[in-house]
């Protein structure tokens, strides 16, 4: 914070203090109370829902309640998503074939063929995607790209092959 000029500051204070002398027209305050009391005797307008809430609900408690509801909904949604994952058949890592992990309380009771992490039966390692073991072949285009397409001879200028001065060696077709 920078220092203020004391003279300027003194002038400002005097100017502000002079505002105290600004008064409404004469008689304003004589009528003021009557106006207030007349309006007070009129029926009060029905408070809006917001006004009623403002009067009756502590804002801090309301904020805490809203926060708790948001957290609760988040947790509930998270749990719901988790159960959907389990039901969808996509097996989480290391839990292939629906076999439960061995309990740490009974480490000797291991399943006969415990699957290593991400290499459960019928899953691609690390991805959780199922392997295709149904025997059905994938479309041919995926097995042999370009198969079935007609070949067309390339139109090449024969003089290109005769030019031996080029640094790159080109073998002419036999």
């Amino acid at each position, binding site marked *: 914070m920078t220092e203020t000029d004391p003279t300027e500051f003194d002038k400002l204070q005097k100017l502000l*203090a002079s505002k105290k002398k600004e008064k409404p027209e004469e008689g304003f305050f004589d009528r003021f109370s009557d106006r207030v009391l007349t309006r007070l005797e009129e029926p009060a307008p029905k408070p809006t829902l917001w006004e009623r809430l403002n009067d009756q609900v502590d804002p801090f408690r309301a904020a805490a309640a809203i926060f708790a509801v948001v957290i609760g909904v988040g947790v509930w949604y998270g749990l719901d998503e988790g159960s959907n994952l389990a039901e969808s058949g996509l097996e989480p890592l290391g839990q292939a074939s629906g076999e439960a992990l061995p309990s740490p309380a009974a480490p000797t009771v291991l399943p006969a063929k415990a699957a290593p992490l991400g290499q459960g039966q019928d899953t691609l390692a690390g991805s959780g995607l199922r392997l295709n073991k149904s025997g059905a072949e994938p479309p041919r285009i995926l097995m042999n790209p370009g198969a079935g397409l007609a070949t067309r001879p390339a139109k090449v200028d024969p003089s290109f092959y005769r030019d031996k001065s080029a640094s790159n060696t080109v073998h002419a077709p036999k």
Partner: protein
Amino acid sequence: MLESPSTVSPAKGGETMPEWNEQEQVSRARSGDMEACDALVRQYQERIYATIYHMTSNHEDAADLAQETFIKAFRKIQNFKGDSAFFTWLYRIAVNNTINFIRSKRRRVILSINQMDEEWDSGEELLGLVSKDTPQRDIDRHELQGILNAAMQKLSPNHRLVVTLHDVQGLPHEQIGEIMDCNTNTVRTRLHYARKQLQAHLSDYLKQ
């Protein structure tokens, strides 16, 4: 709790009251006694009006908001727990009402300035505060009032409020803190920045 500065002062308007007892008036007003309401209005109307007027720089708005303040206070007087002076509680209602009003009509500020008290004849003294080296030296007292009020309107509502309560109305920092629901250091800091901004806005008129 700060004691209301008016707990023992007589009522305004030259009427003599035996002794002003705020607590008694408040409890009577709470039970619906209109005479007590009238006494409370007369006791605080000038200060409440002045605070709102210096915040809005508009007489009509100040008159409406001051009325609303008292009506709201009497309709909610059952909620007044007595944790603070009635005066402070009333001020809080006035201040919150006014700040909400200012925020709602931020774009259209119309100055409607009251005349200086006729009894206060120190216009020359006031104009003596204006710089002698600037062309604005020719301004009159009313114009100077307008310039000052326009500068006030450039402050944020909180800065304007702290200047109004401290520099215009002369309330102590502690009481301003109670009204604004903040600590004394915050009041001092806001006051410092508000004055700096006012000085910057009025620099042409205040320099030597």
